[in-house]
Every structure is written in C-alpha cells, then in structure tokens.
C-alpha cells in the first residue's frame, strides 16, 4: 500500500486547511457544499457516493461522474494584549478535491467509486512566532479511496457502503522550546515527516424513501487511525552540546486519528423548483486524546501533546432552487461545533465554533455536462483561548491569546452523465 501510485502527486494537491472542526475538511461535493454541505438525503449526482452511498442506486443515469476542486483561503490571526505580540498565518491555499463515479448495474444494484480528501490541515505561522514552541507549520493530508455498492431492497429502502483505503502524509515543524538556540541564535527545531501512511476503514449507509418527495438518509464512516511508523524526525539548529539532543535525524512513531462520523438527515422536494435538505452530523473526535511522538533516539524524550478533543455535532441546512432548465441555484448554512476544549486550544488547529454560509449554482451546458460552482464563507467568532498543556521545568506554561479567523472556499466542479 505504501506505493499507492497516486498518493504522491495527489496529496500535494490535497493539503487543505481544516474546516469542519479539528482537521476535517468539508468540501467533498460542490452541489452539497453549496447547500451547507448537507447531502445525506440528497440524490442528484455522483456526489451521493460520498454523502450517502446507499442513494446511488436511485440515480437515473447509467453512468455519472462528479469531480471538483476547492481552493481553501484561510486567515488566522493571533494577538496577546498582555505582551503586545501578534501574528497571522501565511496565505497558502489548500486544494481539497473529489472524484465520485456511479455505475448502474441494474435497477437494484449500483456500483461506485469515491476519491476524496475529507481530512487535512495546512497551517503556516511565521517562523519563530511566539507560539513556535507549539507549531511553526503543519501539513496533513489524507486521501480516501472507496469502492462502493448500493443495493435497493425495496422501492422505499436501500443500503450501501464499502471499504475505505486511506493514504496520508504528515509534516509538522516546531521549535524545541521557547528559548533553545545554537550559538548563532538560530532556534532549535524539529520536523517530523512521513508520507504514504496507509490504513483502511469502512462506511455503511441506508436511505429510506417513504414518499417520493422525501428521502431520509443515514451514513456512518468508521474511524481510521493514521499510524506513522518509522517516519523521519529531523533535528535542526540544536547547539553542539551533550546537554541537549543533537542536530540530525532519527525515526519517530505517531498516531493521528481520523474520527468516525455519523450523519443523518433528510431531503424534501417541495415541488419541481424547490428542494430542502437537512443533515445532523456527529463526529467522534474523542479518539483524539493526545498526539504522542515517540522518537527512536533513546536520548530524546517522547513528546506528549494532550489534545483532549470532544465529540461534536454540526447542523447543516441547504436549499436548492431550479431557476431555469439549465440553471440551479443553491444556498445553505451550517453550524460547526469545535471539538477543541477550553485550555486545549493549540495553534496547529486553531478552530473554535464556526458558522458556514454557502451558495452556489449548477449550469447545465449540455444534456450530459454540467458545471457546478460553490462558495463557502466560514466565520469564526473572536475568541480568547489558551493551550495549557505545554510545560517547562514541570510547570504549565499556557500559550494564551485572542484568535480571529475566517476562510473562503470557492470551488468548481463538473458533473457528467451518460
């Protein structure tokens, strides 16, 4: 699995900032994204492969493909009014993408494939900024590849799911502590890097269609642990001294969990023009208790970084209006609960509760081909937060400040039907 052909190139594309709590990225379909990223009850394109595989069997076309890419433009600012320090993250747009396909074998069975990047994070602070002992920059990316089957059990009920193959990358740099330098004053720092980390998981779903206008969906995606084993840790600018670790490389092990999520919701087609969707999602972030980095070099202590995430819910609302035969307009809103608890606000995933406002459209260029565009504006309230689990000399050294962030995610995609 280490040599997944696509992993290298695609992962570079996939680095994205975290936009649905933690490092979950909500950008797996432009049509759904335009509707507040609600889609567990929606059947309108191959995007359904991600949001609710059991719905694929209800697609009318023999073969349909949805693919798209989103630009993530995030801004995070930090300031500490007790010291007068301030910093902001560098603009480094991430580009999550998706490719979903569905093939109708017969009236009762559809097969599908979903390739997406639901987890990722890219945060780059100014080098040696005041929180550099926690993070200078981090880049996480994971690609989910999932073959799917969708089976209609009755006119009213279908099931779907399949295994998930994940390949991921991690690159994380931070300074050794708040003050250690070499004799030139360069801050001692550590980078951990691993690529092609693989693991597997699964998803299962069903869709209940009591009446033609109403679809009720349920989708569960399992937890997947990205175990970086034997990754490379590089120690740079450490002083030449037997009192500290030495510059050079060693191996490390670390585990980054991608939590399970459960989504349920419905879509209601009021009339030919209007469709409304609602999703409730529960993400089981509790699994992310601590990021422990274990170095092979026995002289380097294991780095324990408590995270103590909590399970969270998000609520997603979307509406779709078919303006003309060729043009469909969409809008939505979602509320995103942050899994980060008080005192655990680490600047590597600086996320508090957010409000997402979405809009978009699909334009049917030909009978087979449509362009889908979406736009997400994510707004986070200004928040006074701290990370209290960093210690020096056995004492807690809180990293405090005020954070204010927002993000813009314009996305473009295509839908092709045969």
């Amino acid at each position, binding site marked *: 699995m280490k040599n997944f052909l696509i992993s290298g190139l695609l992962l570079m594309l996939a680095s994205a900032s975290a936009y649905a709590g933690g490092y979950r990225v909500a950008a797996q379909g432009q049509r759904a994204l335009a509707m507040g990223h609600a889609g567990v009850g929606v059947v309108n394109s191959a995007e359904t492969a991600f949001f609710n595989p059991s719905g694929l069997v209800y697609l009318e076309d023999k073969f349909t493909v949805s693919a798209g890419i989103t630009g993530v433009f995030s801004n995070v600012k930090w300031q500490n009014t007790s010291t007068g320090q301030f910093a902001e993250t560098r603009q480094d747009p991430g580009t999550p993408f998706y490719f979903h396909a569905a093939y109708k074998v017969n009236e009762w069975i559809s097969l599908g494939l979903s390739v997406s990047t639901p987890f990722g994070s890219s945060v780059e602070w100014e080098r040696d900024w005041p929180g550099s002992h926690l993070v200078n920059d981090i880049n996480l990316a994971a690609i989910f590849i999932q073959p799917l089957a969708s089976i209609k059990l009755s006119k009213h009920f279908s099931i779907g799911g399949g295994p998930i193959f994940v390949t991921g990358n991690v690159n994380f740099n931070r300074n050794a502590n708040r003050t250690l330098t070499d*004799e030139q004053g360069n801050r001692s720092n550590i980078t951990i890097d691993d690529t092609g980390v693989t693991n597997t998981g699964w998803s299962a779903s069903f869709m209940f269609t009591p009446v033609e206008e109403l679809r009720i969906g349920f989708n569960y995606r399992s937890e997947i642990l990205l175990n970086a084993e034997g990754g490379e840790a590089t120690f740079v600018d450490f002083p030449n001294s037997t009192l500290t670790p030495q510059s050079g490389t060693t191996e490390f092990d670390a585990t980054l969990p991608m939590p399970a999520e459960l989504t349920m919701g419905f879509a209601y087609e009021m009339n030919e023009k209007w469709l409304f969707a609602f999703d409730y999602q529960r993400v089981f972030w509790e699994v992310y208790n601590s990021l422990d980095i274990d170095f092979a070099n026995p002289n380097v202590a294991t780095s324990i970084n408590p995270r103590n995430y909590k399970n969270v819910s998000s609520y997603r609302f979307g509406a779709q209006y078919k303006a003309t035969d060729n043009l469909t307009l969409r809008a939505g809103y979602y509320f995103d609960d942050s899994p980060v608890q008080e005192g655990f606000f680490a600047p590597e995933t600086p996320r508090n509760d957010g409000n997402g406002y979405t809009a978009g459209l699909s334009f049917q260029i030909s009978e087979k081909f449509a362009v889908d565009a979406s736009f997400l504006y994510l707004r986070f309230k*200004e928040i006074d937060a701290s990370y209290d689990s960093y210690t020096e000399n056995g*004492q807690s050294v809180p990293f405090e400040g005020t954070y204010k962030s927002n993000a813009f995610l314009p996305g473009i995609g295509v839908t092709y039907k045969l």
Partner: protein
Amino acid sequence: MKNYIKFLPFLAFGLFACEPEFEEGIEENEIYTAGEADFSNYVSLGNSLTAGYADNALYVEGQENSFPNILSGQFELVGGGEFTQPLMADNLGGLKLNGNQITNNRLVLSSNAGQPVIPPAPLAGDPQTEITNKLSGPFNNMGVPGAKSFHLLAPGYGNAAGLPAQANPYFVRFSSTDNATVLGDALAQNPSFFSLWIGNNDILGYATSGGTGVDQTGNIDPSTYAPNDITDPNVFASVYSQLVSGLTESASGGVVYNIPNITDIPFFTTVPNNALVLDAQTAGNLTGFFQALAGIFTQGLIQQGVPPQQAQAIAGQYAITFNEGPNRFIIDVPVTQTNPLGFRQMQPEELLLLTIDQGALAQGYGSVALSPEVLQVLGLLQQGGSPSPEQAQLVLNAVNGIDDKDALDTSELQNISNARTAYNSTIQGLAEANNLAFVDADGLLQQVSQGISFPGGIVTSDFVSGGGFSLDGVHLTPRGYALVANETLRAINMTYGSDLPEVNIGEYGTVTLSDNVN
C-alpha cells in the same frame, strides 16, 4: 448565464481580501497609548548594560536582546520608530584592532558527557569585528561597553588613536568623528525619548579588580583617574546633570536607572568567603598551627624588646581558631602597626571574586600550606621544643592569605558603598527634578537575588543556573535584560500615563550551550 459565471472569480477574490479583524487590534494600534511621551525617536545612552553586552563580550544576539532593543519593540506599538544598533560583525564577539584580537570571544557553557563544565569558556572562532571599520550611523543605541559617566562627555573617546587609554574600542566603531562625544552624537539625533543608565563602571572597575584601584573621592579631575578607580561623587553629579540637561532639551521624556549593589551580582557572591570546609582533624591542625604561629610571633616581639603583655596582645590576633565544617578564609591586608603580619580571617560581609583561582583555594590558598616541614616544626613545638629562627620563619611563611585582587575587604566595600549611595541620590534627585521616569535597578536586582517566578521557572542571580546573569557573572542574560525592560515599561507608564505592555520573560533565553570552545 456564462456572463455571470465569469464574474464568480472576481467575487471570490474580493472576499479573500477580507482578512479577519479583531475588535481591538494590536496591529491596528487600537489598544496601547503613548501618554505624554513621544517614542518616535528613542535614543539610549549608557554602558555595557545598555549595549546588550553579555558573556564577557558584545555580540549580535546579545545586542538583539539589549534592553533598549526590547523596549523599542514595545514602543513600536505606540508610534516608536526604527531602532538602530551598531551591530557587531558576528556572534563570537571578540574585537580586533588592525587584525589583532584585543578582546576575548564570548563565553559559552560547554559540557562533558551530559555535565556542564564550569567555569564557562570562550567560544572558538576567529572574530570578524575590526574596530577600525567605521560604521555609518547614527545609531539609536549609544550604549558603550566600559564607559564611565564622564566618558560620555569626553571628546576623543571614539578616536582609535587614543586607544587603549583615552579611547574606547566600541565607540571607535561608530563615533561620528574622532572628536565626537557620546552625548554629542546622541543629541545630534534629536531624541524624542531617551534612556540613561550610567555610573555602574564608576565603581565596578574598582570592585571587579578587588579594590586594587584608588578611591578618587576628593579628586575632581577625572583625566587623572586610572581604569580601576572610583569616580568622585561630585564629578559624577556634575557629569550626570550635564547629561540630563542635554537630553531633556529635545526629548519629551526619558528614563534613568540607578546603580545596583554589587552584593546582588554573582561575580561577587558565587564564591563564598567561608568555603574553607574542614574535617575535625584538619581544623584542629590549623588551629594548632595558628596558636603556634602566635606563640612564635610573641617570642619574636619580646626578643625585639616589646613588653610581653603588649606582644601577647598583638600576636593574639593570629591565634585563629578553626572548626569542623565551613570556615572563612585568611586574607592579606596591608601591614600596619596593629597588624604587623598583614593577614587576618575574612569578616562575614567581605567578598571573594568569581575570578579567584578555585583550584588554588583547594590547595591552601586562603589558609595555610601545611608542608611536611611545617608540620615537623609544629610537632617540635607541641613537644615543648623551641624552633630555630629559620623554622619560625617557615611557619610564618606558610600562611597563604588571599591577595587583594581576589577579594573585597571591609574598607573597599565601604568605599564602593559610599560612592554608590552618592551616585544614586544624584540620579534619583535629577530624575525627580526633571520629571523623568526612574527605574530602581538596585531594587530590581535585589528582587532577582531573591528569585522572580514566571510561568515555567524562576529567575535568580545564581551563577550559570539562575537565568538572570550571563556567564561573566556581571552582565545580564536576555531574560535579565527583559526584566529590566519590563521594569522600565512600568516606570514609563507610571510617569507618562502611557499604556505599554510588558514582554514575556519566559520567551527570552539565558545562557548559550556550546562545546565549540578553545
């Protein structure tokens, strides 16, 4: 429809420009205020402490962490301008004059198999700061390592031709002309705000030399002073008043600092005066030795015709007793009629310098070299025998008191204290008369010697490990300078009604580790 789609990217890019904004942003100058002070052109005057000198050298990293540079970073939040410093060429810190190295490289803490090596050693390398390479100023930081108060007014202090006696190699690097004075070059910049911390070296040269210089109190001609002399307090007062009146002419305000007590500086407190730790037997031997010595000396005096009672009274002072455990060392003092042998045991308040040869202390420096020959004489005495004149001399010569250069005795401490008290009352008086912010640096270092806690640790004045003082034991670490900066910010806020935030001292480093030593 395509027309609309065309505009989407523009809409998007318009929104990307919408950076998040704080309700009250530091970057937008919405929080802090300058009060009545104008920080647009801050100029700092002083000595090594102002320059950012540390670890027995001036080097780039130290300069970046000079307290004036830390202050200027906070001043920037309320309209402070760029703060320029005459940066050294490297982080080695040694100076060269015409290609010859004239000062040592900075000290670093080396290690051996996971243990620190004391004393600290100079960092290896060929320093690149050639003092004849003139820097083009002006510089906001006019701190000149080694400067005494009157040097700031001395023309030619920056003239290479006057080295080493009349000029200062650091000022040679950046003086505007050969004849320039430090004050003149500062005033030429029209400072809107200033800091002045001067006077430390007016006593420190004397103190770090173990009081080998002269207390010049009463001599008002500083041109006759040697480097290790104490400056006359009237000279200091006159110089200080000229400095303040010059600086207050253009400046909206300023801050001045008093002179700390040397007993709060690890250079004078690290080697205790009672580090003569003895077991019971050695203590007994030493006591016996000094009793014998007193006896011999009594006999000698009587032989010279001194009445026995008087002889006993004089010689009695040498019958020093020692106990198991720590004992104070023996120091040499001037030979006087009352102390004809010129040594005595140290007084509790007397100090040893960091630079004393601690290896020698372990070998009898500061007590007695009990050679086999000496012990033989002692044995003879114990058996009631009387030593020959040669043997008696052997005993007298065995006393190995600590030299003047390694210690500060009571009278030297008194000289230092008298001068410092006078300087400090001048400084505080002029600060009040001119409504200047006043930093009690003396009080601050006293607090450091007690320990100042912060999240993640405690700053003390313990040598090497305390975090407040650099490896030369006199100058501060970046963390120590950050403490000075914070104390300054508090004083400025109080005097000028400004609202300036303090820095986080835990983010400032202490001593540098490196095994790249000579």
